[in-house]
């Protein structure tokens, strides 16, 4: 009954669904790199690499900065961690909800048993 809307989360996961883009994130996790370097590493054209980096940038997973003629890509890792944490929170919500439900149900069960005992005596 309660739905949270996180459009940017969808963008992040769409970005992560591609193995090349996951590879780019891993590569950037080791060190910053230019689009040219990334294109060479992954055996792609500059245009193809620019597209992948664009998707990652849109999702907030990568930041780019142009210095002179070189565009350098860095990991925007904080966002990624936030989103992993957000998924965990969803599970935590249901887990917490069901913990409370357990408490309510156990209390009702004890109550019923007490009532039955009273009836018998």
């Amino acid at each position: 009954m309660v739905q949270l809307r996180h459009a940017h989360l969808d963008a992040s996961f769409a970005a992560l669904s591609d193995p090349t883009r996951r590879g780019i994130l891993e590569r950037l996790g080791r060190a910053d790199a230019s689009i040219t370097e990334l294109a060479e590493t992954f055996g792609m054209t500059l245009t193809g690499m620019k597209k992948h980096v664009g998707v990652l940038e849109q999702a907030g997973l990568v930041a780019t900065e142009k210095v002179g003629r070189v565009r350098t890509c860095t990991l925007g890792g904080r966002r990624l961690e936030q989103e992993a944490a957000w998924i965990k929170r969803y599970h935590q919500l249901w887990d917490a909800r069901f913990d409370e439900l357990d408490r309510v149900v156990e209390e009702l069960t004890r109550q019923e048993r007490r009532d039955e005992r009273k009836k018998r005596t």
Partner: protein
Amino acid sequence: MNARSGREPGPVKHRTTVERKSDREVVVTRIINGQARIVFEAFTKADLFRRWWVPRSMGMTLLSCELDARVGGKYRLVFDAVPEPVAFFGTYVEVKPHSRLAWTNEEGGDGGSLTTVTFADKEGKTLVTLVESYPTKEALEAAGTGAAEALIETFDQLDELLITLGSP
């Protein structure tokens, strides 16, 4: 030293699972320590329902909770929020005492989801299976929670990735 106190050990807390069943469905399961009859009651009686549906960790305050758990009956939950309270509402479409419950989620207008809950007896305990079904894959993804859980299978992968990314 080995003597135990007279207190009985508390009931086991069971695991909550969250899984994507298809493009349009997310499934949550949990075994609850009590009979289906009682669990069903906790889902359908407002005074009981409000005691567990909004756990403290959710950080929200429930201002009102009305449930009319009959086929065609309505429910309405109002939460305290800034700048104004937010209502979640819908209609019960299936009510089979102690075994099955389904309601629509209408606050989002078109593309609202259907929540179906089944209660299965497991030797005095109850397996609760809750399915959120969206009319389309896009609706599930737009709903956020669905999209997040849809990717629970890649979560482990994501975890690994985070570890990789986190290490310099």
